């Protein structure tokens, strides 16, 4: 039976960039184990010869002509930003202390 440990949930949360609290880790780990156990029931249902479906439609790439069409103005594109500077998104520092 698959089980996710508290440490594993903490690692996954780190990968997903969410700072979970200790309480959240405590209740998420058992809940996720129950869900995983249930979804693991599909292992072995499909043989190796079954092709995977990623999409309901038989899609090929859709291209358009490379022409300029109306789009958002810089003001519109920046309108929802938490912080703006010189017509750009202003973000926290992206490098660590050691870098």
């Amino acid at each position, binding site marked *: 039976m698959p089980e996710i440990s508290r440490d594993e949930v903490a690692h996954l949360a780190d990968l997903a960039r969410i700072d979970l609290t200790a309480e959240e880790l405590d209740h998420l780990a058992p809940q996720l184990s129950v*869900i995983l156990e249930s979804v693991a029931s*599909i292992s072995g249902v499909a043989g190796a010869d079954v092709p995977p479906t990623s999409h309901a*439609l038989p899609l090929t790439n859709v291209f358009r002509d490379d022409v300029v069409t109306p789009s958002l103005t810089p003001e519109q594109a920046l309108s929802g930003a938490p912080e703006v500077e010189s017509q750009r998104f202003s973000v926290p520092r992206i490098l660590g202390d050691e870098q």
Partner: protein
Amino acid sequence: MAAALDAGETTSVALTQAHLDRISAVDGAVHAFLHVDAEGALAQAAASDARRSAGQVASPLDGVPIAVKDVLATDGLPTTCGSKILEGWVPPYDATVVRRLRAAGLPILGKTNMDEFAMGSSTEHSAYGPTHNPWDLGRIPGGSGGGSAAAVSAYEAPLALGTDTGGSIRQPAAVTGSVGVKPTYGGVSRYGLVALANSLDQVGPVTRTVLDSAILHELIGGHDPLDSTSIDAPVGGLVAAARQGAQGDLSGVRIGVITELSGDGWQDGVMARFTEAVDALVGAGAEVVEVSCPHFVHALATYYLILPAEASSNLAKFDAMRYGLRVWPEGDAPSAEEVMKATREAGFGDEVKRRIILGTYALSSGYYDAYYGTAQKVRTLISRDFEAAFEQADVLLSPTAPTTAFPLGAKLDDPLAMYLNDLATIPANLAGVPGISVPSGLADEDGLPAGLQILAPALADDRCYRVGAAAEALLAEQWGGLLLDRAPSLDGGADGEAVSA
């Protein structure tokens, strides 16, 4: 209502004001809306009335007000997806379906409540509090589109838009006695829909009658170059199919009842109403066969691997950099990554975190083949089940949801029990086929609405409308009116009379 507008018996301003008044009167108790735009709706209504006087009606629904699920981008109106992480965000553009509503002259009343990022079956996962079922305010209105379904069934809006990833239009419709349609995947543009799971999401109508859904579907459907998964084929014949079905003649139509969607866990009263609805269709000349879709029992597990996988990557865009919430953690000069982590911790609710972690797990190296890879293969088997079933029957039938509305809070701490609500609706999303839910009556145990689900092959949405309209007409004849006529009035007055849009 469109007919009354045509006949000059009312105006769009009067209609819109009447719905705004109804919202003021009952939405404190129902909480279907996250944002009401009275001023904007009345201005659009006045413009509609002016067009009508000038003889330039823009569409069959010009002037009929509508509510829009808060997962669809609306230029100038807040769009939160039921999440704190988007609180106060005002999109600088319209979703294609919203643009089409505006072009067709429908005043937009406001934005409706939903489970956060459409993850849920009860609307209890909204960061802004749950919506209440108009039939019993202590119960859930379904989800994730509980706000749209409640608005329509509480007469706060004659029409609404929803989105359906695993049943979020059809299940709320079933438990609120309204009509909800998930179109064929690719039939309606997803541009401007904040994606939950791109390969499953579809926008569709929520209404009080099947014909209203057909009219609205034709308005919002059709090819959109801004959505690369949009099908490049005309959408039509839906209104005609609904009118044909309403005649109550189903001679030559083969209906298949899905064996796997009944049995243990299905409420007796829901099954009783389902059987009666099937009998009514047979009485109208339909031929009934039982069909087996053996892989449907694996649909739920398949869905809860594919959906979190897609959702975890979709929701990565909420990174506190370009829009939405930004939370600074304690400490000196935190990095972008630390800000992102603190923001997502503060901005996302429990269910969203659960699914992001589950999706991250399913996509991790070492587990990818065992979980996501296997789920994609089972998805193929489910599509093959549909293909085989549609060789035996023109449409497939099941109850829309296994139970009627449950009490608020009943399943909040048991995610797996919550997921089971979507047992019957999920297969259609995995295969991309269309489905409709129409009211099948009230369950004996609790007097609450149940739904009949009708599924058709991809691009054969017209069959859903034909059989759906037939079921609606035949059952209304038995009941002496629409099911919603029997809904509680909520404002202490006499019960309402269902009015079609």
